[in-house]
C-alpha cells in the first residue's frame, strides 16, 4: 500500500491502448453484425466516442488523489470502507478477465494452430509468463507491453494491408441502414471493450508522473484503439461479407485464411497466430497484474512472490473449468456484463461525490 509506482504518461497511454485492443479485434465484427450489419464499423467509432467521457472522468479522478498508489487513491475518493468494497470489485473484474482471456487464448490457439498440444499445456505456459510478469510488478509489465507492441503493431498493420487488397468495399453498403434502436443495442453489447481501457486509465492515471498530460494522451489512444477496431471490422466485412463474418466466433481467423492475392499471397494466418499470442499475453498480463496490485492494496500482508503464485494457482484451476469455447464465452460475459458494465454507473457517481466533497471543503475554507 505504501509502495509507489510512477510511470510516464505516454507509457500509460500505450498500455491503455493495448488493454483496449487486447483480443477484442478477433470477435468484434461477429458480435456487431447481428445487430447492425454493415453499419458495424461506425458503431464501433460511436461507442468509442461516447465512452471518451469516462476516460476523461478517470483521469480527472486521478488528479483528485495523491499520486503513486491506486489503493490510496480509491480510499481518498471513497473512504476506507467503500474504498475496500470498490477495490474488491475492481480486483474481481480484472481477475476474472485474466482467467477468461487466458482460457480463451489457449482454447483458440489449440483449435487453430496446435491441435495436438493439450489445452492444459498452453494454459500453464501462458500462466507462467503472466506470473513471471507480475513478480516484477507493474513497471516491468508496462515496459514489456511497450516492447511487444513494437512487434504486434507492424504485424497487425501488415495483416490489414494484405486484407485491404482482398476487400470488396461494396460489401459495406448500405451505409445508413441500421435503426437507432439496433445501434443502441449494439453499442451496449460492445461497451465492455472500451471499458477495459477506461479501467486501465483509472488504475494507471494515479501512478503517472506527469498527470497534466495523461488526460489528452489517454483520450487520443482511446480514439486510436477505436479507429483501429473500426478499421478491422470494416475490412473483415469487406473481405468475408456479412453472412460469413456472422457465422464465426472469431472472424479475423477465417479472414486471414481467406486472403488470396493473385494465388501468390496466401496463408496470411501466419501473421495472425503470433498476433493472437501477443494480444492474449498482453491482455491477460495487464489484467493479472492489475488484479494482483489491487489485491496488494486490499491485503498488504499478502506479499510477493506468494501473491503471484497463489493468484496464479486460482487462475489455472478456474481457467481449466470451461469445457469449450462457449463456456469460456459465458465466463467472459459474466465478467464483462455483471462485473464490468456497472462501472459505467459507478465512475460518474464517484466523480460527482468527489466533486461535492471538494466543493464542501472549499466552502468550509
Amino acid at each position: 500500500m505504501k509502495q509507489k509506482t510512477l510511470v510516464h504518461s505516454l507509457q500509460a497511454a500505450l498500455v491503455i491502448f493495448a488493454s483496449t485492443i487486447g483480443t477484442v479485434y478477433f470477435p468484434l465484427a461477429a458480435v456487431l453484425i447481428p445487430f447492425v450489419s454493415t453499419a458495424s464499423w461506425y458503431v464501433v467509432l460511436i461507442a468509442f466516442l461516447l465512452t471518451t467521457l469516462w476516460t476523461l472522468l478517470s483521469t480527472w479522478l486521478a488528479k483528485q488523489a495523491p499520486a503513486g498508489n491506486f489503493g490510496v487513491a480509491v480510499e481518498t475518493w471513497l473512504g476506507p470502507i467503500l474504498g475496500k468494497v470498490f477495490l474488491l470489485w475492481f480486483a474481481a473484474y480484472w481477475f476474472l478477465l485474466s482467467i477468461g482471456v487466458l482460457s480463451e487464448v489457449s482454447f483458440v490457439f489449440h483449435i487453430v494452430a496446435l491441435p495436438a498440444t493439450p489445452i492444459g499445456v498452453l494454459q500453464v505456459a501462458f500462466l507462467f509468463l503472466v506470473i513471471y510478469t507480475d513478480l516484477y510488478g507493474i513497471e516491468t509489465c508496462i515496459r514489456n507491453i511497450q516492447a511487444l507492441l513494437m512487434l504486434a503493431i507492424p504485424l497487425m498493420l501488415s495483416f490489414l494491408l494484405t486484407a485491404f487488397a482482398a476487400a470488396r468495399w461494396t460489401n459495406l453498403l448500405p451505409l445508413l441502414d441500421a435503426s437507432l434502436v439496433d445501434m443502441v443495442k449494439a453499442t451496449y453489447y460492445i461497451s465492455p471493450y472500451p471499458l477495459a481501457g477506461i479501467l486501465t486509465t483509472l488504475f494507471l492515471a494515479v501512478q503517472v508522473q506527469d498527470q497534466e498530460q495523461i488526460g489528452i494522451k489517454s483520450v487520443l489512444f482511446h480514439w486510436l484503439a477505436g479507429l483501429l477496431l473500426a478499421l478491422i471490422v470494416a475490412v473483415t466485412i469487406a473481405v468475408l461479407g456479412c453472412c460469413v463474418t456472422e457465422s464465426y466466433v472469431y472472424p479475423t481467423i477465417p479472414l486471414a485464411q481467406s486472403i488470396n492475392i493473385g494465388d501468390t499471397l496466401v496463408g496470411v494466418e501466419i501473421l495472425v497466430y503470433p498476433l493472437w499470442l501477443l494480444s492474449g499475453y498482453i491482455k491477460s498480463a495487464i489484467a493479472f497484474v492489475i488484479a494482483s496490485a489491487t489485491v496488494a492494496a486490499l491485503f498488504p500482508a499478502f506479499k510477493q512472490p506468494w501473491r503471484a503464485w497463489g493468484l496464479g494457482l486460482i487462475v489455472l484451476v478456474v481457467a481449466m473449468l470451461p469445457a469449450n469455447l462457449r463456456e469460456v464465452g459465458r465466463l467472459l460475459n459474466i465478467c464483462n456484463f455483471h462485473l464490468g458494465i456497472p462501472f459505467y454507473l459507478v465512475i460518474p457517481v464517484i466523480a460527482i461525490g468527489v466533486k461535492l466533497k471538494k466543493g464542501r471543503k472549499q466552502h468550509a475554507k
Partner: protein
Amino acid sequence: MLSKITCRLIALLLLTSFCLVGCWDSEEITSLAPVVAIGIDAGSEPNLMRISAQMALPAAGGGGGAGSGAAHTRLRVLTVEAKSLTQAFALLQSRTRRRHFFLHLNHVVFGAQLARHGLGRATEALQAWPQIRGSTLAFVSEETAEQVLHAHSGIGQDPGSDISHIIRSVSSAPLARKMTLNDMINALSSPGSTTLTLPILGLRPLALTSGDENPAAGVGIDGEQYMEVQPKGTALFERDRWVAELSVRETQTLAVLVGDAKRGMSTMVNPENPEGKLAPQYERIRVSYRVNETAPGQLQVVTRLRVDIRLVEIHGGYDPQLSDTAPIEATVKQDITNRVSALFQKLQAHGLDSVNIGQRIKQQKPKLWRQLEADWLQIYPSVEFVVEAVPKVRTLGLIKNFYRLGE
C-alpha cells in the same frame, strides 16, 4: 534460486515455443498427403454422399530433370461413400498411410446430380473444417465430380489446377465467374436468394501435341483415353439447386455485370463494310446500376456500362482518319446492349437474380428494399431493365488506317 537471466531465458523460450510446432506433433512433408481437390457427388442412396479426394503426394527424394512430369506428380484419387464429410475423411484416411492435409486444397467440385438436388448440405459440411479455407474455389461438374478429379491436364500437372488458373485470371479472360466457398455461404445464407452461380467443368478427350508429356498421345498404358477439363459456362442456381446454365459467351457478360471481369472482347459486323468483321477488345469496363421506382411496385433498373475500346483486329478495312470512331462506337454500343439485355431476359425468364439486383437495391435504397424483400422473387421477373452502354475508342495502336484487301 535461478538467476534473473536464467528466468528471462526460460520465459523467452516458452514464448517462442508457441511459434513452433511441438516436438510431439511435428511431421515431415513426406509423411503428409496434401488434398488438392475434393469432389462431392450424390451417393448411391439418398442419405449418402460420394466423396472423392485428390491427393498430390510429394515423393521422398523426388526431383526434376528428365522423366519428371505427370508420372512423378504421384496424384491419387480415392473415393468413398459416407453419410457425412467427417465419416468420409475418416474412411479415406483409413485407406492412406499418410495423414491428410487440407491447407493446400485448391478447389471443391460438386457433381451435377448433387447440384441439381441441392448443394446446401454439402456446403454446410465444408464450412467448419478448420483447414479448409473460405477462399477455396468451387465448381460444378457437367457429369460427376469424381470424373473431373480423375481427368488429366494438358497444361498443368495437377488435374484441375490449370482450370483454376484460368478462373483466377478471370479479369483478363472471363471464361467463368470465380466463386469461393465464402461466396457460396454468402449467397445461400440470404433468405430466398437466387444469386448462386458456379462455373461448370466439362470433360473432353485429352489430345496432347507438344510431346512434352508422357504418354504423348493422351492415352494411358492400357490404351485408356485420358480426359482433360475445360470450362463449359456457368450453372445458375435457384437457392442451392442447379436449374439453368449460361454458355461461355453469356458467362463473360455475367462476369462483367457482377464486377468480376473488367475486360472482354466481341466480334461484330464492320460498320464500314458489312462483309467484314470488327473484333474490339473491351478494357476498363465499369458497370453501375441505378434503381428507379417508376410506379408503385414497378421497378426500373438502369445498367450503365462504360467501356474503353482497343481496336486490334478489323476485317474489311477501316480508316479512322476519314470515318472517325463514332460508327465503331455505335456498333459496339449495340453489341453490348444486345448481350446484356439478352442475359437479363434469360435470367428473368428463369426467375433467377444471378446478377444480385436485389443486393444493389438494398445498397442504394434500403428502405425500398425492406418493402420489396419478402416478395422480391415475384417482383423480379417484371423489373424493367434498361441498358446504357457508353463505349469510347481509346486505342487504335499505331495503325493509321486498317487496310482492305485489294481486289
